[in-house]
């Protein structure tokens, strides 16, 4: 069936089977491979994208369910970059605080982090850990991911460079 999904601000019309999952629509139909495809069972969270501004696991959403709706993927984050119009603050935080190693979980983590900070600009560590509790990282032990998200929060709160530098 014919669907039109607005992805990162741009409408895309495609003919798809109803059984096509949103994650495969993004990756295979639109070539947006920043959204990763992991466990396929809505456990790992690497496929997390925003659907109408709310993070969802795109391996458990049908592409046809997104017809007429707005999707934001990691490719859409930098468009609204806050610090210098390039990367989003959460992306910068992951760069500054070594928030990734292999990078597989990173797109999903970034989108959840963005959503968290939009709702709570100054989350404490417990709140950050709860927010990312539906996403698995097998490299970092989460420490640097939490620091990265705090960095992004402080960047916005201070309006400039965060007071807390990355720890080794």
């Amino acid at each position, binding site marked *: 069936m014919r669907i039109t999904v607005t992805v990162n601000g741009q409408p895309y019309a495609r003919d798809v089977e*109803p059984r096509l999952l949103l994650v495969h629509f993004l990756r295979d139909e639109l070539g947006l491979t920043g959204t990763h495809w992991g466990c*396929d069972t*809505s456990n790992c969270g690497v496929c997390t994208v925003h659907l109408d501004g709310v993070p*969802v696991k795109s391996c458990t*959403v049908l592409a046809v369910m997104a017809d007429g709706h707005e999707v934001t993927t990691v490719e859409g984050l930098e468009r609204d970059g806050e610090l210098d119009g390039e990367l989003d603050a959460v992306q910068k935080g992951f760069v500054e605080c070594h928030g990734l190693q292999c990078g597989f979980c990173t797109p999903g983590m970034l989108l959840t982090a963005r959503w968290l900070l939009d709702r709570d600009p100054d989350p404490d560590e417990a709140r950050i850990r709860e927010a990312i509790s539906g996403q698995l990282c097998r490299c970092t032990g989460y420490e640097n991911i939490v620091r990265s998200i705090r960095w992004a929060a402080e960047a916005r709160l201070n309006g400039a460079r965060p007071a807390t530098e990355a720890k080794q």
Partner: protein
Amino acid sequence: MQVPATFAYERARSVAHALELLERYGPEARVVAGGHSLIPMMKLRLAQPEALIDINDLAGELGRIAVEGDELAIGALVRHAELLESTTATNIFPIFRDAERVIADPIVRNRGTVGGSLCQGDPSEDLSAVFTALRATAVIQGPGGTRTVPVRRFHRGPYETAVEPNELLVQLRVPITPGTGSAYAKVERRVGDWPVAAAGAVITVRDGVIERAGIGLTAVGAAHFCAPEAEEHLAGRPPGEEAFAAAGRIAAERCEPHGDQRGPADYKRHLAAELTRRALVAAAGRI
């Protein structure tokens, strides 16, 4: 790669339209909302519906949480995250906050729905125990109109509910009684997992004695998620450790847990007693 079998997809424009579509496609059609139980089952080919009726656009009709008279009404399409964040619901019944905080994870809670959780009919599902403890009523709409079924008679067995193929669960209604406290206690292997065991407790105290108790148990083989003998034991007694511990023991004796990868049966039975006791203590502290 997990791919569902083929199916027809229809998006309902209203509850009436959803019912029309269910009538048209017959018993092999399934309603989909959050899809976080149904789509994984379809990917594993454990479910192969011929048609999906998507009701995600019906938030106007099915997405409300409101106090109506002496009842709290919760629409079937309310997302887990919305129930967790609803102070209307959680101020009156903190059991919703207890339970929703430990259902899946925040991202899944953004999508999964209250009605979907009940209609899935999973014998380890959390809200089934919560609504059982609360003595809620399910409102079901079909071609002939609306009917109500107590949640305690909603589940006919694993993955089977009172909702007929041409019907739609539209709302849960929870009686509000002054002097009531509620709580939920769950043991899970890791964050976001299904329970090893969990218990919900709701007690109403008047003149120093328990007027009515509601106990819901999940994942431990309690018939209809319910512990009626334990509830009867509490009625008329003063709230306190002794009565709560006895109720926990009675509830555990009457359930029939099965050993599986989440734990052996005797451990689950122990949890049924202890979690019932803890939920009752917490509920009493919230009156």
